[in-house]
């Protein structure tokens, strides 16, 4: 039997178990417990813990660690993640893997301390310059977070790019039991910078950008093809499909179960990879579906764009997409259900 553990502590421990030995970060509510935990834990395993002067610096410190081939990570929250965008895009351009945990807090600019999902578009499209992408993984429970952190490191290494664990204040702050895997030992990545000049790094000034553009696109296409992850409920006969991720997805899972029990033909897609977006899940949905409902913890609706884009390129291009956004806070099952009924009754206009 496992003990209750706080989300942020679980994230930190999961990264340690996944073989990460290097952390640099800067405190910010509601993610600070990650680094507080690591300030004890990393020295125990002989790893490196650096409290940097800022989020930006911590990302650049990570750049040196990742270029050295060391499994490394950072964590922050929304406005703090904004400051990491410069480093994230530079690491993307340098093909350097990393894991960054965004314990999202609701709001623009400084934001609030409330739980929310208002960084979806930024994290899936990238807040830095250029065409890069990172993996964006979103857990709905601590157990799933533990697994996704391991998976996130592996994906990052496999494709030479970054992974964002995109989670919410509420998951970072809540407690529930979870199981950790054994400690993994990870070697320094091959072909990394260690002073021995084992390979020649081409200067950014002389890289073949056209070839890289083509390669990047191909790589992203192959990731879209191969790395989608999601959970689903009752898609085969669904008249409506609710789409929600993270804790909204968890609440929606319960809502869908209850609605089914009440006789409603409703299904659920819970994206686990926000990028690549789980388009394949939508292909499994019953052709006669009447519509999709995006449930999000933000002000304007963000993931709804990916739902609409997915449908646009499928045989369901004419299916309406509805949206239920409630600014911040985990949407209650009650509200999700009520909203579903309103959609079903034609009381809500589609957004796409």
């Amino acid at each position, binding site marked *: 039997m496992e003990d209750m553990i706080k989300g942020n502590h679980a994230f930190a421990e999961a990264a340690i178990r996944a073989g990460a030995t*290097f952390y*640099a970060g800067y405190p910010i509510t509601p993610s600070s417990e990650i680094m507080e935990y690591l300030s004890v834990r990393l020295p125990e395993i002989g790893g*490196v813990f*650096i409290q*940097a*002067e*800022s989020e*930006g*610096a*911590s990302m*650049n*410190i*990570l*750049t*040196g*660690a*990742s*270029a*050295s*081939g*060391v499994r*490394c990570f950072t964590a922050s929250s929304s406005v703090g993640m904004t400051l990491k965008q*410069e*480093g994230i895009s*530079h690491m993307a351009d340098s093909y350097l893997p990393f894991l960054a945990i965004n314990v999202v807090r609701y709001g623009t600019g400084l934001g609030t301390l409330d739980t929310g999902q208002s960084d979806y578009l930024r994290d899936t499209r990238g807040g830095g310059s250029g065409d890069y992408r990172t993996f964006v993984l979103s857990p709905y429970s601590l157990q799933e977070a533990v697994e996704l952190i391991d998976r996130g490191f592996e994906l990052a290494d496999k494709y030479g790019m970054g992974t964002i664990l995109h989670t919410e204040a509420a998951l970072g702050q809540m407690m529930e039991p979870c199981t950790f895997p054994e400690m993994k030992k990870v070697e320094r990545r091959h072909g990394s*910078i*260690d*002073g*021995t*000049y*084992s390979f*020649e*790094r*081409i*200067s*950014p*000034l*002389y890289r073949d950008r056209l070839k890289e553009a083509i390669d990047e696109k191909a790589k992203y296409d192959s990731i879209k093809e191969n790395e989608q992850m999601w959970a689903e409920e009752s898609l085969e006969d669904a008249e409506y499909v609710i789409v929600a991720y993270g804790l909204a997805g968890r609440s929606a899972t319960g809502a869908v179960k209850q609605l089914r029990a009440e006789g409603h033909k409703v299904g659920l897609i819970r994206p686990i990879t926000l990028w690549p977006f789980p388009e394949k899940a939508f292909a499994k949905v019953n052709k006669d579906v009447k519509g999709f409902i995006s449930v999000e913890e933000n002000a304007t609706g963000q993931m709804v764009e990916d739902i609409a884009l997915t449908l646009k390129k499928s045989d369901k291009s004419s299916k309406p997409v509805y949206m239920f956004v409630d600014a911040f806070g985990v949407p209650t099952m009650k509200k999700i259900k009520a909203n579903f009924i309103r959609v079903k009754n034609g009381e809500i206009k589609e957004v796409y």
Partner: protein
Amino acid sequence: MAIAKKVPEMLSKQISFCPGCGHGVVVRLLAECVEELKMEKNVIFNVGVGCYSLATPSIEADKFDTLHGRASAVATGFKRCNPDTLVISYQGDGDAYSIGVGESFSAAYRNENITVITVNNTNYGMTGGQMSATTMPGQKTTTSPHGRDCNTTGMPIKFPEMVAATFPNAAYVARGSVTTPKYVNQLKKYILNAFKAQLNNEGYSLIEVLSPCPTNWKMTPLQSLERINKELVDYYPLGEFKTRKEK
């Protein structure tokens, strides 16, 4: 016949700075010192963004091009992961003292065991000679067209002096110049000192180099050297601001 003075092996390719640019001398001296310490296979050249970014293709050793201003942070990552490797952070006055001043300051503050070389050519060379934090009072640049007005822009910064005065544990701090044979030789000694301090785990070391940018100064190379010798060294004195404690 033997060769008495030889361009270091790792610099086998031509470098593409403007004629008379001081960066070439600095890069050569760094490579010479690395060679003398036999660290060619145990060194990381970590390079900021400025004209010196043009140098990395010519350096055959481990190297990394960072973002503008972030080199001291990236170097921190390298050093913590490669504690026995010589980590050199090559930056410019724009890179290290303006956009990167937070990272530069904080690496010194943490007393990271790295060597930072800041080439001070009193402007932003790469982007066309804008004013930098080291531009001299009255100096004309593309963003101080009537000459730098220190009343609104501040007095030029003396970073090495600041580091020496502010960070008690810093291992070694000096300012050199590339403008005369004597200064070049002296600068080489400074660099060797800094490298030795780092290899001996003594902590942070910093060397600022006064260096000509004939192109943006709109001077000939020789005039540029003269400007440094006549004008700059008065404001930016050469010498060691913090010497190694004997260990």
